[in-house]
């Protein structure tokens, strides 16, 4: 499948009952008498869906990803996932003692891929992110965008069907980010993964995802939702992106202003 084919993964929409991630009435407090970080959050994500969570600082969007990834546990409520998810961060967090290829191989090892298959598989995964020539390079020899692509390859190496991304492109320059948006869409279309993408960049969310969820801050709640059609990714400078992004940004600003009083 290619970018220009205009494929709509949405068309293979699952039955209403089917979900990849199901979050029901989740509440999170870090301490018993501390502030409520997430307040009664419920969310269903369909298999193969690309959902973005946007919100200002303190809306608990990263906390929610950590809960889904089971790096932390909720105070109450339930989170079900169809298989274990994998998680990417703002930093690529590649291990600096390993080459790019070895970083991917390590993920394969922990996913119980037999030794004999690891190298070839790691090369395939690096080729998928156009880094087949960087197999023997160390993380510090790669640019920020290249490191993040290796991190994508490493996440894919785990063979999980759910990819959680915590502001993965926030630290990159605009040109690189633009390319990575297109790369991510291509990989999403090729793999059919479910992606939950956290960002505070509204345009990024609109451009990439099929559904954008706006979260309020302190306590974190999902307060609005936009379904977005069309094939992905939209061009960043397309009028549709600009229009929808400004609508969402207005809501986001209202939410932020609420905290001024």
């Amino acid at each position, binding site marked *: 499948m290619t970018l220009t084919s205009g494929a709509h993964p949405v068309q293979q929409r699952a039955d209403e009952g089917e979900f990849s991630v199901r979050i029901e009435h989740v509440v999170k407090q870090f301490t018993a008498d501390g502030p409520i970080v997430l307040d009664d959050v419920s969310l269903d994500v369909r298999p193969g869906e690309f959902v973005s969570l946007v919100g200002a600082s303190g809306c608990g969007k990263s906390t929610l990803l950590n809960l889904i990834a089971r790096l932390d546990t909720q105070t109450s409520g339930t989170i079900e996932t169809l298989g274990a998810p994998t*998680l990417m961060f703002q930093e690529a*967090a590649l291990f600096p*003692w390993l080459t790019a290829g070895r970083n991917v191989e*390590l993920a394969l090892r*922990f996913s119980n891929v037999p030794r004999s298959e690891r190298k070839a598989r790691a090369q395939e995964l690096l080729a998928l992110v156009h880094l087949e020539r960087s197999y023997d390079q160390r*993380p510090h*020899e790669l640019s920020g*965008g290249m490191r993040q692509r290796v991190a994508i390859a490493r996440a894919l190496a785990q063979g999980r069907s759910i990819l959680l991304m915590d502001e993965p492109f926030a630290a990159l320059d605009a040109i690189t980010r633009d390319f990575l948006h297109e790369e991510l869409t291509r990989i999403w279309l090729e793999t059919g993964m479910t992606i939950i993408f956290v960002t505070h960049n509204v345009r990024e969310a609109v451009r990439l995802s099929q559904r954008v969820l706006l979260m309020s801050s302190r306590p974190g709640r999902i307060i609005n939702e936009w379904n977005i059609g069309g094939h992905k990714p939209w061009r960043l400078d397309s009028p549709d992106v600009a229009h929808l992004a400004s609508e969402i940004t207005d809501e986001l600003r209202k939410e932020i202003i609420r905290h001024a009083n």
Partner: protein
Amino acid sequence: MPTDEQISAEVRPSDLSQLEAGLDALETGGRQGPSVKTLFARALSPLIAIGVIIIIWQIIFYLQLQPDYVIPGPRQVWDALANQAEQQILWQSTLNSIRRAAQGFIIAVIIATPIGLALGLNSKLRAVFGPILTGLQVLPSVAWVPAAIIWFGLSDATIYTVILLGAVPSIANGLIAGMDQIPPIYLRVGQILGAKGLPRAWRIVLPASWPGYLAGLEQGWAFAWRSLMAAELIAVSPALGPGLGQMLDTGRTLGDMALVLGSIGMIMAVGILVERVVFSPLRQRTLRNRGLIR
């Protein structure tokens, strides 16, 4: 001139990978390691200090501030060592001492690494045993020589006991310090990758703590070498065979200041050599691989 429509045309996947390749090329490269000349200069620079020290020493010797048997000149010390070399004692002693220190050091690494990992991973164990480890590290291991002689007599066991008590705490504490400095994100990635138990310790925790661990190993080696010299100096017996410590003790017994200084010089020379040949390259390689130096 391209029209507006051409400019806003969709980027094709093949263009995408080419654009990306171009971007990758622009953002990387243009770096290279130090040249052979720089490496050579770096290896030779300590010789300058040695040269300066010998010149100052020679000047003091010429001034005749003290009689020759108190401050011998470089030439006399050289002759004393040459004399030992002729009797086959110098190289036997040096190699024997290096062999003992190296064996003791390897055993120390094997013992200290699981201890360090256990204390670094388990805060309860650390609260209980950490202070003892630090206490052992502060205690000069030469303090163990009398005890070791009473337990094991004048035997190799005595010497190895003292080496281990000197090196194990340093290595274990270095590893623990290295583990404390692991960026938490690496451990989170490890958790996401599904790393647990021994594979986690071996594939993630140990390499992540390697810079601190290496510093501990280096200090552990220094302690092993010092402890060995102390043990050899005190536990002198024909049964133990030659060693640099024994050579130093022979100098003392004979009142041969040239041999004493020569032995001290050899002990230092071995220390510098091991640092230059083993630890310095390891450290450089580690830092360069991780992008901490060019």
